[in-house]
């Protein structure tokens, strides 16, 4: 269950998604039912085929469907699973017990799986990337993620990234979950973001790749048409990796209704799930 952190309601929404997929394929009465503007219909998003027209210039604003949205969006390239670690990087990686790699839920120490802690960046852009809404102000761009209902800000005012995250001084910044991001348009359809200063306790990927606070992650957004947006990510972290690491490529599709499911995270539900279901089922004596 990848969406265990979400509310029970989102779980119901997931059932509705599966129902929508089943009916959508057959063109059955579900497609003729009245549409509520407050609901997301993945079959409608899937039906919005093709490029939809040229990409607007220097504009990514709006709501986009990512993978796991039911909109037929496929992930192009997953993050590297076996990057070139430095000895320290390997040591840190070996400590991270990611669920699903021969590790049961009860054995995982993934802070998101065990506590519903925020993913942090860059993991929130390559894991559970179901939908995002992008909004732009004169000096910054916001990426608002549906999964866990959190947002990132990317400064576009020409400022430099901070470089110091330890010690004392006016130029020392605290490491934070989303890091510090700056962005710029490199042409009319490509927006490049650089981020550093991410808190070291978060994982860079679902598979448990670690990162240091000095890691620099580059995102390259490319809008190739009205309906298509792609994102390629790389991480340069010489402390932990002897060469840059690919964090994968993700595709997005424009959602015509601009509406999506709600994925607000509820930690108490996670604790209840772990206590009553997942941990007992993961115990050595549990039936498989």
């Amino acid at each position, binding site marked *: 269950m990848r969406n265990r952190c979400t*509310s029970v*309601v*989102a779980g*119901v*929404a997931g059932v509705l998604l599966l129902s929508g997929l089943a009916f959508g394929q057959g063109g059955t009465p579900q497609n003729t*039912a*009245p549409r*509520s*503007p*407050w*609901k997301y219909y993945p079959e409608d998003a899937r039906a919005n085929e093709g490029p939809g027209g040229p990409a607007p210039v220097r504009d990514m*604003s*709006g*709501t986009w469907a990512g993978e796991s949205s039911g909109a037929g969006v496929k992930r192009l390239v997953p993050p590297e699973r076996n990057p070139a670690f430095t000895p320290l990087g390997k040591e840190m990686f070996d400590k991270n017990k990611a669920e699903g790699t021969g590790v049961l839920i009860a054995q995982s120490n993934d*802070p998101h799986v*065990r*506590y*519903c*802690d*925020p993913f942090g960046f860059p993991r929130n852009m390559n894991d559970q990337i179901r939908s995002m*809404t*992008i*909004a*732009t*102000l004169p*000096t910054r761009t*916001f990426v*608002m993620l549906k999964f866990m*209902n*959190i*947002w990132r*800000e990317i400064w576009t005012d020409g400022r430099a990234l901070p470089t110091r995250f330890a010690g004392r001084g006016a130029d020392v910044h605290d490491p*934070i*979950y*989303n890091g510090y991001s700056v962005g710029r348009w490199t042409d009319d359809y490509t927006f490049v973001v650089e981020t550093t200063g991410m808190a070291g306790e978060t994982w860079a990927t679902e598979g448990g790749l670690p990162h240091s606070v000095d890691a620099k992650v580059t995102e390259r957004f490319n809008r190739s048409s009205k309906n298509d947006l792609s994102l390629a990510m790389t991480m340069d972290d010489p402390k932990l990796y002897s060469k840059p690491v690919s964090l994968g490529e993700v595709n997005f599709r424009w959602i015509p209704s*601009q509406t999506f499911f*709600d994925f*607000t*995270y*509820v*930690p*108490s539900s*996670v*604790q209840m799930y772990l206590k009553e279901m997942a941990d007992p089922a993961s115990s050595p004596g549990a039936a498989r």
Partner: protein
Amino acid sequence: MRPIVVALVVLAGLATVGDAQERLTREDFIVEGVRKMPNPPGPAPARDLSGVWVGPQDEKDDPVPPMTPAGEAIFKERHAYGDATRTADLGMSNDPFITCDPLGFPRNLLAHAVSGRGRMIFASAPGRLLIAYEQQRIWREVWTDGRALPKAVDVRGAPESRYYGHSVGRWENDNTFVIDTTGVDERPWLNEEGHPRSSSARIQERYVRRDQYNLQLTVTIDDPKYYTKPWTFMRGNFYWVLGQEFAETFCIPSEAIEYRDSLARPSGIQAR
């Protein structure tokens, strides 16, 4: 002699550093932690809330009205943290925020009342106003495309209830933006005391931009399922943030649980 010379040099250095740093007085602040803008405010731009605001300051709330029996029944089951007046067990709390559950709407507005430093920013996307909050780093969307609020939630054909509800908004005049919300998930508390709010509650926010730097917010609630009459839940002022920056303010569940288990419970302040 040398130690005295060294001390004098050090003192001179400190004085130099001190002079280079900005010396702030109480007059430089609106309230604690909220810097005053260096110039007087200009007129409010028409139909424009964009920017980072901090508040609420000068908050005034009406008393919560009498509840219906249904409201009372829910309220009775809730034990606010540190509240010794409504519970037989001192310090026993089942506030879901203790383990970082989402505050939900409209409590997320009240949480900012702690020191008045909560920030929010308005942005826009097609057909919507977006509001991003510092507290818990969450965001809401307010539809401005003229749609009606959902008549019901959590029933067949209807949308599901949400922690932050379903919202529509409109400009009432050039300086007043009104948001109506319904369909809130009933699990979050209305406030720190644990009052309930139903999914059928209608919650209205009125943002009045008085000038360039001041935004007044009034929140009213009409929830006949749980309350005998509507009331003003909150009145407060939001001020323009100097520098227009946010802090990252996540509630981290693992840390909250560690605090509860290693400090709160052993100290006798029992929490869920």
